[in-house]
């Protein structure tokens, strides 16, 4: 198991390198393919009415005039060993993992990312708990009461949840609960400052996000349960004289949950990398909102940082899922 995890981690590092390479290449190549030179690129970052010497200085400072592999090498080196930037007489050391400095705000990228993580993590974790519990519960009941009013109603709602985009449901939620009835009109605060306010501020985003996912999970759980409850081993469990409750939970749900666990890990990893729509709708300053701004600003270091971080989360989530899979399913273990 340990060797498996180590091997997977090594593969993950390679994967992250590949992701960074591709992101870098896209960012570097696309403007050039569109006919822009490093000089005209640099012009974006100087401010209004720049004089050519300022542009030239920025071009050299950002290293835009250098070949792509030099730029990329510097980027990777910064992540692993840190990097010392020198502009004129002053020298700034950027400790690893150094993702460079924002081309716009001149702020180091890594601290910006880490300050954004708690918001996104709070959002994703809270929503995940809600959607996992509600989605699986609704799915199980729907499967057992297949064809009844409950099943039809919950699956209809689920269809709505899957189809309605977050910027729609989120707006409705905001309109009703934040503006009209003023129940949840609070600004986000950190959980360490005031857990109650933290939760109150996140209730709407949690529910909005969880609505989408629990709809998905309810449908998945339902079909999974319908399938497993038809398995021979369920009949065996009943033939043993186990109470129906034990049959459903211990024998049915246990098996039906395995694929859901996989998807749950991936979804969570994806969300921690930034719940873009939800954060945007509720103005939560997390990684998602940060990503939108970075892309809007064509700020390469910030984009690289957030893409790598998101990829890192997905890779880690994958790894955790694989390990959990071995824990859950003995056939994988042996």
């Amino acid at each position, binding site marked *: 198991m340990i060797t498996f995890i180590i091997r997977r981690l090594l593969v993950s590092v390679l994967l992250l390198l590949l992701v960074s390479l591709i992101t870098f290449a896209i960012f570097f190549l696309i403007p050039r393919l569109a006919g822009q030179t490093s000089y005209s690129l640099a012009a974006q970052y100087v401010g209004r009415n720049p004089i050519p010497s300022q542009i030239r200085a920025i071009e050299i400072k950002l290293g835009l005039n250098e070949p792509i592999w030099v730029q990329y090498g510097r980027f990777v080196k910064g992540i692993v060993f840190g990097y010392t930037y020198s502009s004129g007489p002053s020298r700034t050391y950027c400790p690893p993992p150094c993702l460079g400095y924002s081309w716009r705000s001149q702020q180091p990228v890594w601290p910006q990312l880490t300050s954004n993580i708690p918001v996104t993590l709070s959002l994703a974790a809270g929503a995940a708990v809600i959607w996992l519990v509600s989605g699986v519960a609704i799915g199980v009941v729907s499967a057992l009461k297949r064809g009844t009013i409950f099943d039809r109603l919950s699956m209809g709602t689920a269809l709505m949840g899957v189809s309605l985009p977050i910027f729609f449901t989120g707006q409705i939620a905001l309109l009703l609960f934040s503006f009209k009835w003023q129940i949840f009109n609070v600004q986000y605060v950190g959980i360490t400052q005031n857990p109650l306010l933290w939760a109150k501020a996140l209730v709407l985003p949690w529910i909005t996000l969880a609505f989408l996912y629990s709809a998905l999970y309810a449908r998945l759980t339902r079909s999974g349960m319908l399938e497993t409850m038809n398995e021979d081993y369920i009949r065996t469990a009943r*033939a043993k004289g186990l109470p129906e409750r034990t049959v459903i939970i211990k024998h049915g749900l246990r098996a039906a949950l395995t694929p859901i666990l996989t998807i749950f890990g991936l979804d969570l990893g994806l969300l921690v990398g930034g719940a873009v729509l939800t954060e945007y709708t509720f103005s939560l300053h997390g990684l998602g909102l940060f990503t939108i701004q970075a892309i809007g600003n064509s700020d390469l270091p910030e984009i690289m940082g957030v893409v790598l971080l998101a990829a890192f989360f997905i890779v880690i989530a994958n790894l955790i899922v694989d390990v959990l899979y071995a824990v859950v399913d003995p056939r994988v273990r042996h």
Partner: protein
Amino acid sequence: MAATDENVNGGRHRALRGVTAMRSRRQPDTQGKVGEQPTTGAMLEVRDLRVHFPTDDGLVKAVDGLSFALERGKTLGIVGESGSGKSVTSLGILGLHQHTRADISGHIWLDGEDLISATPERVRQLRGSKMAMIFQDPLSALHPYYTVGAQISEAYLIHNKVGKKAARQHAIDMLGRVGIPQPASRVDDYPHQFSGGMRQRAMIAMALSCDPELLIADEPTTALDVTVQAQILDLISDLQREFGSAVIIITHDLGVVAELSDDILVMYSGRIAEYGTAEDIFGRAGHPYTWGLLSSMPRIDEARAERLIPIKGNPPSLINVPSGCPFHPRCDYANMTNGKSQTEIPILHEADPGHLVACHLTAVQREKLRAERIKVPAGNVSGEDA
């Protein structure tokens, strides 16, 4: 029609007499009172069992009026093709049909207790303790996520007031008794770490863990290698002797029941085609369908190797059951009954004492045709098949 011969002896014949007597009396208005009590005193008595499934395409009469009785320590073989209602019967006895999907009527008395009118909770308590079942494919019938030991002790824990340790020890004992080597270490293995034969042994250990009085084996050897099949059948009959359970073996393979069964019930289209002792079925079979089953069975005691003769056609759909005798479209002799085969459902009647046949052929016709169709194992009959 009721049996009157006094020279028949043994509980089975008494049991059968009860069933036939009941059947003959089951004319119009006597049904009510006679049907309420078991008549034979057998450990298991099934009377007029009907399992119907309402579907969108129509009513599926999977089991339609089945009656039989089984004494303690005896083995009944239920034989038939797929769709004849064998498995539906066994699941019905265990109460494993969903009440929302199946209409079940009739009586199933286990030690005098009617399982059909009993509450589902009561039937659940009996399942696994007083009656248990072995399924066809042990790989899919065992839960892949739990160890073999856990699955065996689970049944024991539910029905006995014991601790987990005692249940585990019991699981180890049971694995040893069904012939699994080193049971103390194999108890923590998962089903996928067992071979096919071992899995079926584990299934048997699970079924017998609470010492059931009735064991139903639904095609216990179908999914196994031929070499393992014989071992499993031996195991079942050894354990039956040891535990004294009554056993119902459900199979499409007459060879399997030939080895184990005291009685044999041949089912066709949810009804009894023929019911008698193993000697009745193998020596004096009276139903053309049984003849078909017999001549499609390979025999090593035949004087010379002969081509096996399959039964022509396919089992009927249970929604559009043929009129009259359900077997008549596949029967070679349906035209010998003056059209009765096509219009009347044959009544189950005694061909010999305790030997029931549902066929329109007259006794004389039957004797003559049987002599043509069935080779006596002694091997003195030769010539072409009819």
